[in-house]
């Protein structure tokens, strides 16, 4: 079978090592996420917001960007994206436990509110889609300074209704700015399904109103997502302006640790979606082409497990911020 399998990643310029790295990041994101749910249910961390089901879209997209040069204005599910950009399991656990060393916010923000100046990840907030105009502003500034950087901003399909999406997309279209608008369409805005969010066929259709390309891609396929992203990034870097990419995925878990998705979708629907779990699909592909076997998969899982264990222990034992430090950093010196 493996001899017959079609190698799709080489065709889009991904090496064997790169796809194995992609798989590692996908598994790492999933395992960090799963651990946070366990910690939450054990009463050890107050809140979890998941990337589960969206790892292929996130990691496929992030691999098309250039670390150290490009910028991220991510949203709260983008664990996979920020891992590729250099955040670690330990960073994520420090954030989950709200410890002083949390690089995103020093424990000030909920988990999922990513930010790191040294990694070119702009700090984010909870009101959705506010990061979209910020991405446009970074792209504008980069262009003014003659840099060829690209800015990636992501959001859910529900967020594509926000004014800030439309205002930001329009601004970027008018000024032909190097922004990738990456919509992770996971079919639900908390409880509200896609058909109650959009009257148009797909989120990608929205790009036409702003004078640039919109494209819908199977977000459960990291190679296909990478291919589409790579084209968009190259176009943006060459001065061709923005692209809207809709990665179609499915949110495999409730909206957050405080949500109960049994109130708005059937178990059958979720079970059906799990058959398309991007990690299972990608593992199957890697096995088909002979890059992964049961032994190496087991080794990878053990490596990730050890990484997550170490991160959890470290973060759990790390100190909280000093209470009175709540008063600091309102203004600069």
């Amino acid at each position, binding site marked *: 079978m493996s001899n017959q399998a079609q190698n799709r990643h080489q065709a889009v310029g991904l090496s064997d090592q790169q796809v194995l790295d992609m798989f590692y990041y996908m598994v790492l994101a999933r395992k960090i996420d799963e651990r946070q749910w366990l910690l939450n249910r054990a009463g050890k961390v107050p809140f979890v917001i998941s990337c589960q089901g969206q790892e292929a879209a996130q990691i496929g997209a992030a691999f098309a960007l250039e670390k150290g040069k490009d910028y991220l204005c991510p949203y709260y599910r983008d664990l996979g994206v920020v891992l590729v950009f250099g955040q670690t399991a330990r960073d994520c656990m420090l954030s989950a436990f709200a410890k002083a060393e949390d690089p995103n916010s020093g424990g000030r923000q909920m988990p999922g509110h990513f930010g790191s100046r040294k990694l070119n990840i702009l700090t984010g907030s909870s009101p959705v889609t506010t990061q979209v*105009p910020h991405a446009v502003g970074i792209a504008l500034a980069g262009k003014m300074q003659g840099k060829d950087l690209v800015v990636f901003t992501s959001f859910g399909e529900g967020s594509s209704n926000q004014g800030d999406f439309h205002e930001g997309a329009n601004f970027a279209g008018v000024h032909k700015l190097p922004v990738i608008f990456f919509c992770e369409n996971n079919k639900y805005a908390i409880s509200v399904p896609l058909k109650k969010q959009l009257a148009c066929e797909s989120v990608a259709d929205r790009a036409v109103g702003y004078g640039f390309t919109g494209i819908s891609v199977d977000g459960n396929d990291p190679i296909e997502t990478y291919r589409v992203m790579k084209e968009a990034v190259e176009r943006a870097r060459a001065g061709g302006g923005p692209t809207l990419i809709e990665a179609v995925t499915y949110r495999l878990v409730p909206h957050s640790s405080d949500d109960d998705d049994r109130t708005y979708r059937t178990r059958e629907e979720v079970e059906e979606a799990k058959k398309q779990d991007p990690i299972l699909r990608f593992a199957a592909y890697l096995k088909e082409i002979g890059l992964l076997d049961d032994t190496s998969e087991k080794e990878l899982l053990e490596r990730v497990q050890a990484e997550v264990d170490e991160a959890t222990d470290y973060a759990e034992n790390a100190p909280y911020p000093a209470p009175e430090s709540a008063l600091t950093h309102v203004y600069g010196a």
Partner: protein
Amino acid sequence: MAVISYIDAITMAMREEMRRDPGVFVLGEDVGVRGGVFRATNGLIEEFGEERVLDTPLAESAIVGVAIGAAAYGMRPIAEIQFADFIMPAVNQIVSEAAKIRYRSNNDWHCPLTIRAPFGGGIHGALYHSQSVEAMFTNVPGLKVVVPSTPYDAKGLLKAAIRDEDPVLFFEHKRCYRLIKGEVPETDYVLPIGKADVKREGTDITVISYGLTLHFALQAAEKLAQEGISAHVLDLRTLYPLDKEAIVEAAAKTGKVLIVHEDNKEGGVGGEVAAIIAEHCLFDLDAPIKRLCGPDVPAMPYSPPLEKFFMLNPDTVLAAMRELAHF
């Protein structure tokens, strides 16, 4: 020293800062070719080009949101909101984003952004071209709110705002634009944000104000001097964070305090000023703290008698000052 108008001082500040620092740029509606609907950015596009003087799409949240991204990246944008009344679509960006970027990132990121907006009435602007919206932003730690009342202060404070490492909302009273003139050095100077300024020394009563009404108080003080009443006039200049020390000092100096602003009274900045005085120097007072403010109605109506009724003027301020002096 040249005598110039309040609006020309604002233009001068922007031009000087754009010459000094290539990171400074202007964006907003009609700021480019038109030079701003009030002409505050007049001549800038000719000198600095359309890359640094951007006519943006008509969308306030994007004007501020894009400026935030550019500021976080390292530029020093000056975003113009054409009328303060139209800042509402950008409030989420100002309050949830700009004001919180430094705090929420634990000092990793910051946002050196200036947002300019003309406010205030007396120009037949009706409900949506006359509002004083400052009180909405004076409960937002992380933001600074500045309102100059003289050309000298306008230039020095705007330059300080542009150089500030944090977001500054810079409200310009549009009636002052061409009405108020004063001496402004052509040299480079900045004035400290967060510091009030005594605009007139006096001993009998203290008036605390900002913006257009500050000038009404100064005119009234001149007249009252002829009646033997000496008024001390403090210009707040920065509405957030307030200069508590200067407020307490000015209040304690005369023991009689009148707070004057065009914005409506309830929930206005005057309430906070009164609370500071009550907390810190109640026993220095010889009279209850008085406030003279716009009426508590949604906004300024259009019809001339209605607008006139809404606006304070030198006579209403004079009467309130005299009444307090005689308490």
